[in-house]
Protein backbone atom coordinates (compact mmCIF):
# COMPACT_ATOMS: atom_id res chain seq x y z
CA UNK A 1 0.00 0.00 0.00
CA UNK A 2 1.35 3.38 -0.97
CA UNK A 3 1.10 6.36 1.27
CA UNK A 4 2.29 8.97 -1.22
CA UNK A 5 1.97 8.92 -4.97
CA UNK A 6 3.73 11.50 -7.09
CA UNK A 7 2.51 11.90 -10.67
CA UNK A 8 4.32 13.87 -13.39
CA UNK A 9 5.61 16.42 -10.89
CA UNK A 10 7.41 19.43 -12.31
CA UNK A 11 8.58 22.23 -10.04
CA UNK A 12 9.82 25.67 -11.11
CA UNK A 13 11.28 28.56 -9.14
CA UNK A 14 10.71 31.43 -11.53
CA UNK A 15 12.33 30.30 -14.75
CA UNK A 16 14.46 27.60 -13.16
CA UNK A 17 13.12 24.11 -13.78
CA UNK A 18 14.05 22.34 -10.53
CA UNK A 19 12.17 19.03 -10.63
CA UNK A 20 11.50 17.30 -13.92
CA UNK A 21 8.77 14.69 -14.46
CA UNK A 22 8.99 13.05 -11.07
CA UNK A 23 6.93 9.88 -10.84
CA UNK A 24 7.34 7.87 -7.69
CA UNK A 25 5.52 6.10 -4.92
CA UNK A 26 6.43 6.17 -1.26
CA UNK A 27 5.27 3.04 0.57
CA UNK A 28 3.63 3.20 3.97
CA UNK A 29 5.57 2.68 7.23
CA UNK A 30 8.98 2.34 5.64
CA UNK A 31 12.03 4.53 5.34
CA UNK A 32 12.77 5.95 1.90
CA UNK A 33 16.12 7.65 1.36
CA UNK A 34 16.69 10.33 -1.24
CA UNK A 35 20.30 10.58 -2.37
CA UNK A 36 22.06 12.64 -4.99
CA UNK A 37 24.58 15.45 -5.35
CA UNK A 38 23.92 18.93 -3.91
CA UNK A 39 21.46 21.01 -5.88
CA UNK A 40 19.79 18.02 -7.55
CA UNK A 41 16.36 18.82 -6.12
CA UNK A 42 16.09 16.34 -3.21
CA UNK A 43 15.24 18.98 -0.63
CA UNK A 44 12.90 20.77 -3.02
CA UNK A 45 11.09 17.48 -3.56
CA UNK A 46 10.83 16.95 0.19
CA UNK A 47 9.49 20.45 0.76
CA UNK A 48 6.93 19.98 -1.98
CA UNK A 49 5.37 17.14 0.00
CA UNK A 50 4.43 19.35 2.98
CA UNK A 51 3.97 22.45 0.82
CA UNK A 52 6.79 24.37 2.49
CA UNK A 53 7.71 25.65 -0.96
CA UNK A 54 4.47 27.63 -0.93
CA UNK A 55 6.41 30.19 1.13
CA UNK A 56 8.57 31.00 -1.88
CA UNK A 57 6.70 33.45 -4.10
CA UNK A 58 8.27 32.25 -7.37
CA UNK A 59 7.34 28.60 -6.70
CA UNK A 60 5.16 26.91 -9.33
CA UNK A 61 4.36 23.25 -9.88
CA UNK A 62 2.66 20.95 -12.34
CA UNK A 63 1.47 17.42 -11.67
CA UNK A 64 -0.04 15.91 -8.56
CA UNK A 65 1.01 14.67 -5.16
CA UNK A 66 -1.52 12.26 -3.72
CA UNK A 67 -1.49 11.54 0.01
CA UNK A 68 -4.00 8.93 1.16
CA UNK A 69 -5.93 9.34 -2.06
CA UNK A 70 -6.24 13.09 -1.72
CA UNK A 71 -4.49 15.70 -3.86
CA UNK A 72 -2.61 17.82 -1.32
CA UNK A 73 -2.45 20.77 -3.72
CA UNK A 74 -6.18 20.84 -4.33
CA UNK A 75 -7.62 24.24 -3.32
CA UNK A 76 -9.83 22.73 -0.64
CA UNK A 77 -6.93 20.93 1.09
CA UNK A 78 -6.05 22.68 4.35
CA UNK A 79 -2.30 23.39 4.48
CA UNK A 80 -2.17 23.50 8.28
CA UNK A 81 -3.74 20.04 8.59
CA UNK A 82 -1.41 18.74 5.85
CA UNK A 83 1.62 19.91 7.82
CA UNK A 84 0.24 18.31 10.95
CA UNK A 85 -0.06 15.04 9.05
CA UNK A 86 3.29 15.44 7.29
CA UNK A 87 5.85 16.55 9.87
CA UNK A 88 9.29 17.85 9.02
CA UNK A 89 12.70 17.69 10.67
CA UNK A 90 15.16 20.23 9.35
CA UNK A 91 18.84 20.11 8.51
CA UNK A 92 19.88 22.40 11.34
CA UNK A 93 18.25 21.67 14.70
CA UNK A 94 15.78 24.53 15.12
CA UNK A 95 14.06 24.35 18.50
CA UNK A 96 12.07 27.42 19.50
CA UNK A 97 13.67 29.69 22.11
CA UNK A 98 11.21 28.31 24.66
CA UNK A 99 11.31 25.61 27.30
CA UNK A 100 11.72 21.95 26.37
CA UNK A 101 8.12 21.31 27.37
CA UNK A 102 6.79 24.22 25.33
CA UNK A 103 8.70 23.05 22.29
CA UNK A 104 7.05 19.65 22.32
CA UNK A 105 3.63 20.97 23.28
CA UNK A 106 3.69 23.71 20.63
CA UNK A 107 2.19 21.65 17.79
CA UNK A 108 -0.63 20.42 20.00
CA UNK A 109 -1.33 23.89 21.32
CA UNK A 110 -1.58 25.49 17.88
CA UNK A 111 -4.05 22.79 16.98
CA UNK A 112 -6.26 23.83 19.84
CA UNK A 113 -5.37 21.32 22.56
CA UNK A 114 -5.05 22.97 25.97
CA UNK A 115 -5.91 20.18 28.41
CA UNK A 116 -2.93 20.24 30.81
CA UNK A 117 -2.89 16.54 31.72
CA UNK A 118 -3.20 15.48 28.11
CA UNK A 119 -0.40 17.85 27.09
CA UNK A 120 1.88 16.49 29.81
CA UNK A 121 1.15 12.93 28.80
CA UNK A 122 1.73 13.64 25.11
CA UNK A 123 4.97 15.52 25.81
CA UNK A 124 6.27 12.63 27.90
CA UNK A 125 5.31 10.04 25.29
CA UNK A 126 6.82 12.03 22.45
CA UNK A 127 10.07 12.60 24.32
CA UNK A 128 10.21 8.89 25.11
CA UNK A 129 9.57 8.02 21.49
CA UNK A 130 12.39 10.36 20.52
CA UNK A 131 14.72 8.70 23.05
CA UNK A 132 15.23 11.97 24.88
CA UNK A 133 13.03 11.55 27.96
CA UNK A 134 15.71 10.15 30.23
CA UNK A 135 18.02 13.06 29.52
CA UNK A 136 15.47 15.86 30.05
CA UNK A 137 12.73 14.55 32.34
CA UNK A 138 13.83 16.63 35.32
CA UNK A 139 14.46 19.81 33.36
CA UNK A 140 11.44 20.20 31.14
CA UNK A 141 11.21 23.88 32.05
CA UNK A 142 14.77 24.63 30.98
CA UNK A 143 15.34 26.41 27.72
CA UNK A 144 15.66 24.13 24.72
CA UNK A 145 18.68 26.22 23.79
CA UNK A 146 20.61 24.70 26.70
CA UNK A 147 20.59 21.26 25.03
CA UNK A 148 23.40 19.93 22.84
CA UNK A 149 22.98 19.86 19.06
CA UNK A 150 22.11 16.17 19.03
CA UNK A 151 19.60 16.58 21.85
CA UNK A 152 18.08 19.57 20.07
CA UNK A 153 17.59 17.49 16.94
CA UNK A 154 15.92 14.71 18.92
CA UNK A 155 13.77 17.39 20.55
CA UNK A 156 12.77 18.54 17.06
CA UNK A 157 11.83 14.95 16.24
CA UNK A 158 9.85 14.70 19.48
CA UNK A 159 8.09 17.94 18.58
CA UNK A 160 7.15 16.47 15.22
CA UNK A 161 5.99 13.17 16.73
CA UNK A 162 3.82 15.00 19.28
CA UNK A 163 1.62 16.12 16.39
CA UNK A 164 0.89 12.45 15.71
CA UNK A 165 1.87 12.69 12.04
CA UNK A 166 1.65 9.93 9.45
CA UNK A 167 4.66 10.99 7.44
CA UNK A 168 7.94 12.45 8.71
CA UNK A 169 10.17 14.29 6.27
CA UNK A 170 13.81 14.54 7.31
CA UNK A 171 16.07 16.94 5.46
CA UNK A 172 19.63 15.80 6.20
CA UNK A 173 18.83 15.53 9.90
CA UNK A 174 22.36 14.48 10.89
CA UNK A 175 24.47 16.79 8.77
CA UNK A 176 25.09 19.19 11.66
CA UNK A 177 25.71 16.46 14.25
CA UNK A 178 28.68 14.53 15.60
CA UNK A 179 28.98 10.74 14.96
CA UNK A 180 27.54 9.71 18.34
CA UNK A 181 24.48 11.92 17.96
CA UNK A 182 24.14 10.66 14.39
CA UNK A 183 24.04 7.06 15.62
CA UNK A 184 21.35 7.99 18.13
CA UNK A 185 19.21 9.60 15.43
CA UNK A 186 19.68 6.59 13.15
CA UNK A 187 18.64 4.21 15.94
CA UNK A 188 15.65 6.42 16.47
CA UNK A 189 14.72 6.22 12.78
CA UNK A 190 14.81 2.42 13.04
CA UNK A 191 12.48 2.59 16.01
CA UNK A 192 10.07 4.98 14.31
CA UNK A 193 9.79 3.25 10.96
CA UNK A 194 7.11 0.84 12.14
CA UNK A 195 4.72 3.64 12.97
CA UNK A 196 5.61 6.34 10.49
CA UNK A 197 6.34 6.76 6.83
CA UNK A 198 9.77 8.38 6.78
CA UNK A 199 11.43 10.13 3.87
CA UNK A 200 15.02 11.11 4.55
CA UNK A 201 17.35 13.21 2.44
CA UNK A 202 20.97 12.30 3.03
CA UNK A 203 24.39 12.94 1.58
CA UNK A 204 25.77 10.00 3.42
CA UNK A 205 25.57 6.74 1.44
CA UNK A 206 26.31 4.63 4.49
CA UNK A 207 23.45 6.32 6.28
CA UNK A 208 21.11 5.55 3.39
CA UNK A 209 22.09 1.89 3.49
CA UNK A 210 21.83 1.79 7.27
CA UNK A 211 18.40 3.32 7.71
CA UNK A 212 16.35 2.94 4.55
CA UNK A 213 14.42 0.22 2.82
CA UNK A 214 14.02 2.10 -0.46
CA UNK A 215 16.33 4.60 -2.10
CA UNK A 216 15.77 7.07 -4.92
CA UNK A 217 18.72 8.60 -6.71
CA UNK A 218 18.19 12.19 -7.84
CA UNK A 219 20.30 13.92 -10.46
CA UNK A 220 19.65 17.34 -12.01
CA UNK A 221 16.03 17.35 -10.92
CA UNK A 222 15.17 13.88 -12.17
CA UNK A 223 14.84 10.56 -10.41
CA UNK A 224 17.44 8.43 -12.17
CA UNK A 225 16.74 5.25 -10.29
CA UNK A 226 14.50 4.01 -7.48
CA UNK A 227 14.76 0.61 -5.92
CA UNK A 228 15.09 -1.36 -2.73
CA UNK A 229 18.15 0.09 -1.01
CA UNK A 230 19.99 -3.23 -1.01
CA UNK A 231 19.49 -3.67 -4.73
CA UNK A 232 20.29 -0.08 -5.65
CA UNK A 233 23.60 -0.12 -3.84
CA UNK A 234 24.66 -3.63 -4.81
CA UNK A 235 23.59 -3.78 -8.42
CA UNK A 236 22.57 -0.36 -9.73
CA UNK A 237 20.84 -0.56 -13.09
CA UNK A 238 21.88 2.85 -14.36
CA UNK A 239 25.50 3.81 -15.00
CA UNK A 240 25.06 7.28 -13.41
CA UNK A 241 23.85 5.69 -10.18
CA UNK A 242 26.83 3.42 -10.07
CA UNK A 243 29.19 6.31 -10.68
CA UNK A 244 27.59 8.34 -7.92
CA UNK A 245 27.47 5.66 -5.25
CA UNK A 246 31.04 4.61 -5.95
CA UNK A 247 32.10 8.20 -5.51
CA UNK A 248 33.18 9.00 -9.04
CA UNK A 249 31.24 12.28 -9.00
CA UNK A 250 29.05 14.22 -6.64
Amino acid at each position, binding site marked *: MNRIEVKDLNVYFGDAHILKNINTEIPKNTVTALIGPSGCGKSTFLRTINRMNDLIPSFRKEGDIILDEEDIYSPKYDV*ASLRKKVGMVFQKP*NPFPKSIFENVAYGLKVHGIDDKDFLHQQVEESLKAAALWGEVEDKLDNSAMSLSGGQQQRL*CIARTIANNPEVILMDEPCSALDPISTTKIEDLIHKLKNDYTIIIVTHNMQQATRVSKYTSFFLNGEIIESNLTDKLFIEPKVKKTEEYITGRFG
Partner: protein
Amino acid sequence: MQKNNFTEFLIEKGLFLTAIFSIIMILIIILFILIEGFPAIQEYGFLNFIFGMNWAPSEGEFGVFPMIIGSICVTLLSLLMAVPLSLLCAIFMAEVAPNNVKKFLKPTIETLSGIPSVVYGFFGLIVLVPIMRETFGGTGFSMFTASLILTVMVLPTIISISQDALKAVPNEYREASLGLGATSWQTIKNIIFPAALPGIITAIILGMGRAIGETLAVIMVAGNVALVPNSIFSPLRTLTSNIALEIGYATGIHHNALFGTAIVLFLIIIILLLVANYMQHKYKIDAGSGYL
Protein backbone atom coordinates in the same frame (compact mmCIF):
# COMPACT_ATOMS: atom_id res chain seq x y z
CA MET B 1 55.07 43.64 8.96
CA GLN B 2 56.35 46.64 10.92
CA LYS B 3 54.35 49.01 8.79
CA ASN B 4 51.23 46.89 9.07
CA ASN B 5 51.47 46.83 12.83
CA PHE B 6 51.85 50.58 12.88
CA THR B 7 48.73 51.05 10.74
CA GLU B 8 46.82 48.72 13.05
CA PHE B 9 48.01 50.78 16.00
CA LEU B 10 46.90 54.04 14.37
CA ILE B 11 43.47 52.68 13.45
CA GLU B 12 42.91 51.26 16.89
CA LYS B 13 43.88 54.46 18.67
CA GLY B 14 41.96 56.55 16.14
CA LEU B 15 38.77 54.59 16.81
CA PHE B 16 39.37 54.91 20.53
CA LEU B 17 39.78 58.69 20.21
CA THR B 18 36.54 59.12 18.24
CA ALA B 19 34.66 57.07 20.83
CA ILE B 20 36.18 59.06 23.66
CA PHE B 21 35.46 62.34 21.85
CA SER B 22 31.69 61.77 21.73
CA ILE B 23 31.65 60.68 25.37
CA ILE B 24 33.59 63.79 26.39
CA MET B 25 31.21 66.04 24.47
CA ILE B 26 28.23 64.51 26.27
CA LEU B 27 29.95 64.84 29.64
CA ILE B 28 30.74 68.50 28.96
CA ILE B 29 27.09 69.18 28.09
CA ILE B 30 25.89 67.39 31.23
CA LEU B 31 28.40 69.27 33.35
CA PHE B 32 27.32 72.58 31.83
CA ILE B 33 23.66 71.85 32.52
CA LEU B 34 24.44 70.85 36.10
CA ILE B 35 26.53 73.95 36.76
CA GLU B 36 23.94 76.28 35.26
CA GLY B 37 20.96 74.58 36.86
CA PHE B 38 22.32 73.86 40.29
CA PRO B 39 22.02 77.40 41.78
CA ALA B 40 18.26 77.50 41.15
CA ILE B 41 17.67 74.11 42.71
CA GLN B 42 19.87 75.06 45.67
CA GLU B 43 18.14 78.37 46.25
CA TYR B 44 14.56 77.18 45.70
CA GLY B 45 15.09 73.76 47.32
CA PHE B 46 15.17 70.47 45.46
CA LEU B 47 11.82 69.17 46.71
CA ASN B 48 10.14 72.54 46.20
CA PHE B 49 11.53 72.61 42.71
CA ILE B 50 10.39 69.09 41.79
CA PHE B 51 7.03 69.07 43.54
CA GLY B 52 6.20 72.79 43.42
CA MET B 53 2.85 73.35 41.69
CA ASN B 54 3.46 77.00 40.86
CA TRP B 55 5.67 78.20 38.02
CA ALA B 56 5.71 82.01 38.14
CA PRO B 57 9.19 83.32 37.36
CA SER B 58 8.17 86.96 37.89
CA GLU B 59 7.12 86.11 41.45
CA GLY B 60 10.16 83.93 42.05
CA GLU B 61 8.12 80.70 42.04
CA PHE B 62 9.82 77.82 40.26
CA GLY B 63 7.80 74.63 40.71
CA VAL B 64 8.21 72.32 37.71
CA PHE B 65 5.74 69.64 38.80
CA PRO B 66 3.08 70.62 36.21
CA MET B 67 5.69 70.30 33.46
CA ILE B 68 6.88 66.91 34.72
CA ILE B 69 3.30 65.65 34.64
CA GLY B 70 2.80 67.34 31.26
CA SER B 71 5.81 65.64 29.71
CA ILE B 72 4.94 62.23 31.12
CA CYS B 73 1.24 62.46 30.16
CA VAL B 74 1.80 63.61 26.62
CA THR B 75 4.48 60.95 26.08
CA LEU B 76 2.42 58.11 27.52
CA LEU B 77 -0.71 59.09 25.63
CA SER B 78 1.15 59.25 22.35
CA LEU B 79 2.84 55.90 23.00
CA LEU B 80 -0.55 54.42 23.88
CA MET B 81 -1.68 55.27 20.38
CA ALA B 82 1.61 54.80 18.53
CA VAL B 83 2.74 51.44 19.93
CA PRO B 84 -0.18 49.25 18.78
CA LEU B 85 -0.37 51.09 15.48
CA SER B 86 3.31 50.83 14.70
CA LEU B 87 3.72 47.24 15.89
CA LEU B 88 0.86 46.05 13.71
CA CYS B 89 2.33 48.03 10.85
CA ALA B 90 5.79 46.53 11.46
CA ILE B 91 4.34 43.00 11.59
CA PHE B 92 2.47 43.67 8.37
CA MET B 93 5.59 44.96 6.64
CA ALA B 94 7.96 42.29 7.95
CA GLU B 95 5.74 39.23 7.73
CA VAL B 96 2.66 39.73 5.61
CA ALA B 97 3.05 42.36 2.91
CA PRO B 98 3.96 41.21 -0.59
CA ASN B 99 7.14 42.68 -2.02
CA ASN B 100 5.52 45.36 -4.19
CA VAL B 101 3.52 46.73 -1.24
CA LYS B 102 6.69 46.78 0.85
CA LYS B 103 8.48 48.74 -1.87
CA PHE B 104 5.82 51.41 -1.59
CA LEU B 105 5.37 51.41 2.22
CA LYS B 106 8.99 51.53 3.33
CA PRO B 107 9.98 54.82 1.61
CA THR B 108 6.67 56.37 2.65
CA ILE B 109 7.35 55.65 6.30
CA GLU B 110 10.95 56.77 5.99
CA THR B 111 9.71 60.06 4.54
CA LEU B 112 7.61 60.58 7.67
CA SER B 113 10.77 60.65 9.78
CA GLY B 114 12.39 63.15 7.43
CA ILE B 115 9.69 65.81 7.83
CA PRO B 116 10.94 68.64 10.10
CA SER B 117 9.04 68.97 13.37
CA VAL B 118 7.99 72.54 12.60
CA VAL B 119 6.00 71.17 9.67
CA TYR B 120 4.20 68.71 11.93
CA GLY B 121 3.55 71.53 14.38
CA PHE B 122 2.27 73.78 11.62
CA PHE B 123 -0.04 71.06 10.35
CA GLY B 124 -1.30 70.54 13.90
CA LEU B 125 -1.88 74.25 14.39
CA ILE B 126 -3.71 74.83 11.11
CA VAL B 127 -5.61 71.56 10.73
CA LEU B 128 -5.84 69.64 14.02
CA VAL B 129 -6.42 72.45 16.50
CA PRO B 130 -9.56 73.76 14.71
CA ILE B 131 -10.91 70.22 14.36
CA MET B 132 -10.34 69.60 18.07
CA ARG B 133 -11.95 72.92 18.96
CA GLU B 134 -15.09 72.04 17.00
CA THR B 135 -15.26 68.42 18.13
CA PHE B 136 -14.40 68.62 21.81
CA GLY B 137 -14.84 72.30 22.61
CA GLY B 138 -12.28 74.44 24.44
CA THR B 139 -9.43 76.09 22.61
CA GLY B 140 -8.29 73.01 20.72
CA PHE B 141 -4.80 73.38 22.20
CA SER B 142 -4.52 70.28 24.38
CA MET B 143 -2.71 67.20 25.57
CA PHE B 144 -4.70 65.15 23.07
CA THR B 145 -3.77 67.35 20.13
CA ALA B 146 -0.08 67.26 21.06
CA SER B 147 -0.24 63.49 21.54
CA LEU B 148 -1.77 62.99 18.11
CA ILE B 149 1.06 64.95 16.50
CA LEU B 150 3.65 63.05 18.55
CA THR B 151 2.04 59.74 17.60
CA VAL B 152 2.66 60.44 13.93
CA MET B 153 6.18 61.63 14.72
CA VAL B 154 7.23 58.50 16.63
CA LEU B 155 5.61 56.05 14.20
CA PRO B 156 8.56 55.80 11.80
CA THR B 157 11.04 55.22 14.65
CA ILE B 158 9.07 52.39 16.23
CA ILE B 159 8.02 50.86 12.92
CA SER B 160 11.44 50.69 11.31
CA ILE B 161 13.33 49.42 14.36
CA SER B 162 10.75 46.81 15.35
CA GLN B 163 10.54 45.75 11.72
CA ASP B 164 14.30 45.13 11.77
CA ALA B 165 13.89 43.13 14.98
CA LEU B 166 11.16 40.99 13.41
CA LYS B 167 13.24 40.41 10.31
CA ALA B 168 16.22 39.37 12.42
CA VAL B 169 14.27 36.41 13.83
CA PRO B 170 15.90 33.38 12.20
CA ASN B 171 13.89 31.91 9.36
CA GLU B 172 14.34 28.47 10.95
CA TYR B 173 11.81 29.39 13.65
CA ARG B 174 9.29 30.42 11.03
CA GLU B 175 9.75 27.16 9.12
CA ALA B 176 9.62 25.06 12.27
CA SER B 177 6.35 26.61 13.36
CA LEU B 178 4.70 26.48 9.94
CA GLY B 179 6.05 22.95 9.52
CA LEU B 180 4.12 21.90 12.62
CA GLY B 181 0.93 23.12 11.02
CA ALA B 182 0.68 26.51 12.73
CA THR B 183 -0.99 29.25 10.73
CA SER B 184 0.91 32.42 9.79
CA TRP B 185 -0.79 34.39 12.54
CA GLN B 186 -0.09 31.69 15.17
CA THR B 187 3.54 31.72 14.06
CA ILE B 188 3.77 35.49 14.35
CA LYS B 189 2.00 35.60 17.71
CA ASN B 190 3.69 32.65 19.41
CA ILE B 191 7.17 32.55 17.91
CA ILE B 192 8.24 35.57 15.90
CA PHE B 193 6.88 38.33 18.11
CA PRO B 194 8.25 36.90 21.40
CA ALA B 195 11.62 36.27 19.77
CA ALA B 196 11.75 39.86 18.53
CA LEU B 197 10.53 41.35 21.82
CA PRO B 198 13.89 42.68 23.09
CA GLY B 199 14.34 44.56 19.81
CA ILE B 200 10.76 45.78 19.91
CA ILE B 201 11.28 47.13 23.43
CA THR B 202 14.32 49.02 22.13
CA ALA B 203 12.13 50.45 19.39
CA ILE B 204 9.56 51.64 21.91
CA ILE B 205 12.27 53.21 24.12
CA LEU B 206 13.68 55.15 21.18
CA GLY B 207 10.17 56.24 20.23
CA MET B 208 9.60 57.34 23.81
CA GLY B 209 12.86 59.29 23.73
CA ARG B 210 11.72 61.07 20.61
CA ALA B 211 8.31 61.88 22.14
CA ILE B 212 9.63 63.19 25.45
CA GLY B 213 12.30 65.28 23.74
CA GLU B 214 10.15 66.78 21.00
CA THR B 215 9.73 70.50 21.64
CA LEU B 216 8.69 72.65 18.72
CA ALA B 217 5.70 70.69 17.43
CA VAL B 218 4.40 70.36 20.99
CA ILE B 219 4.76 74.07 21.72
CA MET B 220 2.67 74.85 18.66
CA VAL B 221 -0.35 72.76 19.70
CA ALA B 222 -0.25 72.04 23.44
CA GLY B 223 -1.39 75.40 24.79
CA ASN B 224 1.63 75.71 27.11
CA VAL B 225 -0.26 76.55 30.31
CA ALA B 226 1.96 75.68 33.27
CA LEU B 227 -0.77 73.80 35.15
CA VAL B 228 -1.28 70.13 35.89
CA PRO B 229 -3.74 68.96 33.21
CA ASN B 230 -7.01 67.55 34.58
CA SER B 231 -8.16 65.82 31.41
CA ILE B 232 -6.69 64.83 28.08
CA PHE B 233 -8.35 67.92 26.59
CA SER B 234 -6.58 70.31 28.97
CA PRO B 235 -3.72 72.42 27.70
CA LEU B 236 -0.34 71.58 29.16
CA ARG B 237 3.29 72.54 29.12
CA THR B 238 6.13 70.04 28.81
CA LEU B 239 9.63 70.32 30.31
CA THR B 240 11.22 70.94 26.92
CA SER B 241 8.58 73.54 26.02
CA ASN B 242 9.26 75.31 29.31
CA ILE B 243 12.91 75.76 28.41
CA ALA B 244 12.32 76.76 24.80
CA LEU B 245 9.56 79.25 25.60
CA GLU B 246 11.44 81.23 28.25
CA ILE B 247 15.15 80.84 27.63
CA GLY B 248 15.11 83.83 25.23
CA TYR B 249 14.42 86.39 27.93
CA ALA B 250 15.23 84.63 31.20
CA THR B 251 17.92 86.15 33.43
CA GLY B 252 19.41 85.41 36.82
CA ILE B 253 17.70 82.72 38.89
CA HIS B 254 15.02 82.28 36.22
CA HIS B 255 17.75 81.38 33.74
CA ASN B 256 19.17 78.86 36.23
CA ALA B 257 15.71 77.41 36.86
CA LEU B 258 15.36 76.62 33.17
CA PHE B 259 18.59 74.64 33.31
CA GLY B 260 17.16 73.01 36.42
CA THR B 261 14.25 71.95 34.24
CA ALA B 262 16.77 70.33 31.91
CA ILE B 263 18.27 68.44 34.87
CA VAL B 264 14.82 67.08 35.74
CA LEU B 265 14.26 66.02 32.13
CA PHE B 266 17.64 64.37 32.16
CA LEU B 267 16.78 62.42 35.33
CA ILE B 268 13.44 61.28 33.91
CA ILE B 269 15.14 60.00 30.77
CA ILE B 270 17.74 58.13 32.84
CA ILE B 271 14.98 56.51 34.91
CA LEU B 272 13.09 55.50 31.77
CA LEU B 273 16.24 54.03 30.26
CA LEU B 274 16.92 52.01 33.40
CA VAL B 275 13.38 50.65 33.45
CA ALA B 276 13.59 49.83 29.76
CA ASN B 277 16.95 48.15 30.15
CA TYR B 278 15.59 46.04 32.96
CA MET B 279 12.58 45.00 30.89
CA GLN B 280 14.74 44.21 27.89
CA HIS B 281 16.95 42.03 30.03
CA LYS B 282 13.98 40.30 31.63
CA TYR B 283 12.32 39.41 28.34
CA LYS B 284 15.58 38.25 26.85
CA ILE B 285 15.90 35.69 29.62
CA ASP B 286 12.28 34.65 29.13
CA ALA B 287 12.86 34.15 25.44
CA GLY B 288 15.39 31.52 26.42
CA SER B 289 18.66 32.78 25.00
CA GLY B 290 20.60 35.78 23.92
CA TYR B 291 20.54 35.23 20.22
CA LEU B 292 19.28 38.70 19.35
